[in-house]
């Protein structure tokens, strides 16, 4: 039986721009019942620096995958506070696909995400902290290891620390050695923590012996 991957609906190339192409007309078009019209509106709104809020609000209730992807692309391109706030809000969503899409978008915004990373990593919800750590996996930013080290030193939740230690097992340098050595002492009842820190320290030792 062949796998039929879920495809985003085919998007017509037809230009369905009907309303005025000003900011108000485009934000109104975001609520059209026609997904092609909504997608064109998103595409055009990406040219308006003030569109982040309207796009982020639409993202939370947009059912169409293609329009949703267009909004994420637009928010990534805008990259201002409103746009980033909209992406962060998606991390709290029950919708796993939306959450993952927002995380992927945020990974492309190191300069914009870096100033809010400390806030994300101190969020009351451990799930949000785990997602923030996951964003660090591909965030090209010089402070990534510093953030991860702080997580394994201070975060009280085992799964937040486990996720951070996972990443450190791939990118840790000597900076993180002591924190990694101490992590199993913080969670002595957790074999996974012992396993992942052992892996990270082995890799660190291999790097040192090269």
């Amino acid at each position, binding site marked *: *039986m062949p*796998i039929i991957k879920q495809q985003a609906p085919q998007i017509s190339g037809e230009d369905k721009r009907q309303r005025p192409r000003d900011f108000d007309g485009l934000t109104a078009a975001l609520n059209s019942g026609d997904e092609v019209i909504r997608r064109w509106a998103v595409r055009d709104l990406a040219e308006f620096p003030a569109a982040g809020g309207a796009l982020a609000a639409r993202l939370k209730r947009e059912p169409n995958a293609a329009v949703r992807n267009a909004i994420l692309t637009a928010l990534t391109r805008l990259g201002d506070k409103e746009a980033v706030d909209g992406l962060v809000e998606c991390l709290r969503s029950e919708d*796993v696909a939306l959450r993952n899409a927002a995380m992927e978008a945020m990974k492309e915004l190191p300069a914009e995400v870096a100033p809010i990373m400390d806030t994300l990593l101190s969020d009351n919800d451990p799930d949000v902290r785990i997602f923030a750590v996951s964003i660090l996996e591909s965030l090209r930013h010089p402070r990534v290891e510093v953030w991860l080290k702080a997580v394994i030193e201070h975060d009280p939740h085992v799964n937040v620390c*486990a*996720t951070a230690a996972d990443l450190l097992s791939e990118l840790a340098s000597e900076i993180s050695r002591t924190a990694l050595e101490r992590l199993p002492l913080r969670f002595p009842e957790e074999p*996974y923590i012992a396993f992942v820190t052992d*892996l990270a320290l082995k890799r660190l030792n291999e790097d040192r012996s090269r």
Partner: protein
Amino acid sequence: MKRILIVDDAATVRLYHRKILESACFAVEEAVNGIEALEKTLRAPFDLYIVDVNMSKLDGYGLLKDLRSRGMPQAPAIMVSAEASAKDRIRAFIAGANLYLLKPVKPAQLLSHACLLLGEIYIGKVRP
């Protein structure tokens, strides 16, 4: 030999689960997301699935729903997640999970539940 598929986007988690399950002589394969898991399943179905929730392309819920709707032999599935709420558990069971384990999983916990679902006898302690 019973075949188990571990579906998780974190390589370290896959390695940890693999070591635990191989210590009890299960044949283990890995997939990094739901799409890869489905592709491997279509080539040769597995006796048990151990599935993470958050994965790109096709998440754990989507994978289980897809597996359960394909009319293939209904192998049991353990969903492994860091999300602890009752709502998350119920969602997993509705998607088709037989068990819901919280991360980080302890070796004896994973192995005893795998044996239970596979009709095997659990013979004691293991270390990853």
